[in-house]
């Protein structure tokens, strides 16, 4: 079950990134016809990032302490000191933007150019931050493996 949570957390993050790209493209082509689709996509972004927060938060609080100890003993301590420390705080930027997205998308984007640009900017920064955070997660995960190999744990390779 814990492995499911571990993998579900970046999966929901990536689904949120994909949905934010969807919002960006729909807002770029905003019209009366896709108004409800933009709102639905915006709510999907929010839902995915809130679930990613809950799952990642559970993992972070329940299991990360032991992984942190492994990383700090290995050859890549910066994977915690820089990458994880930044990642776990950076996450709240796209989360806040995702919470705001459905509120901004409630406006008629076809008629309000300002609201349309706001939605596009919020969606773009959710996607860019999300990709950076996914990459950071990969580095942290790999740092555990590198540290385990370095410590001579059998079967990690």
């Amino acid at each position: 079950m814990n492995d499911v949570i571990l993998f579900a957390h970046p999966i929901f993050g990536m689904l949120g990134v994909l949905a934010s790209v969807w919002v960006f493209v729909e807002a770029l082509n905003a019209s009366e016809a896709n108004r409800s689709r933009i709102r639905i996509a915006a709510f999907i972004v929010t839902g995915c990032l809130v679930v990613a927060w809950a799952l990642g938060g559970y993992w972070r609080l329940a299991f990360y302490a032991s992984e942190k100890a492994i990383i700090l003993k290995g050859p890549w301590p910066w994977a915690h000191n820089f990458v994880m420390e930044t990642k776990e705080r950076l996450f709240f930027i796209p989360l806040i933007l995702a919470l705001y997205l459905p509120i901004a998308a409630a406006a008629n984007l076809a008629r309000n150019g300002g609201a349309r640009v706001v939605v596009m900017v919020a969606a773009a920064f959710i996607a860019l931050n999300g990709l950076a955070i996914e990459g950071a997660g990969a580095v942290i995960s790999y740092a555990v493996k590198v540290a385990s190999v370095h410590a001579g744990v059998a079967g990690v390779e």
Partner: protein
Amino acid sequence: MMSVTPASDAAATPADDLKGPAAGFGLAAAIAILFNSLLAWEPLNAYMVSLGGDFWRTHGVAAVVAFFVLGYLFTYHKFRIDGFRLAVLLAAASIVAGGGLALWFALV
């Protein structure tokens, strides 16, 4: 004498204005994003641990609560802003806050 209006302002129309929750929560998002980065200041960690048992849990809840409380207050006070300016504000806040976090942890 004619007044000179910047091209960006000349292009903006009242139809581009944001009001209500879209404006209030938009400004709140920009402020909460910057506030989130300020919470990374290490001396706050012990205090956040005392509040929520783990600094990260308190950090996240504080950032999200700040967003909702400020958003409600700005909306209640009928805050209004040009959408293009709000977009620039959100982009600037995200870049400064994200870059600031990375720089902070690269240096400490």
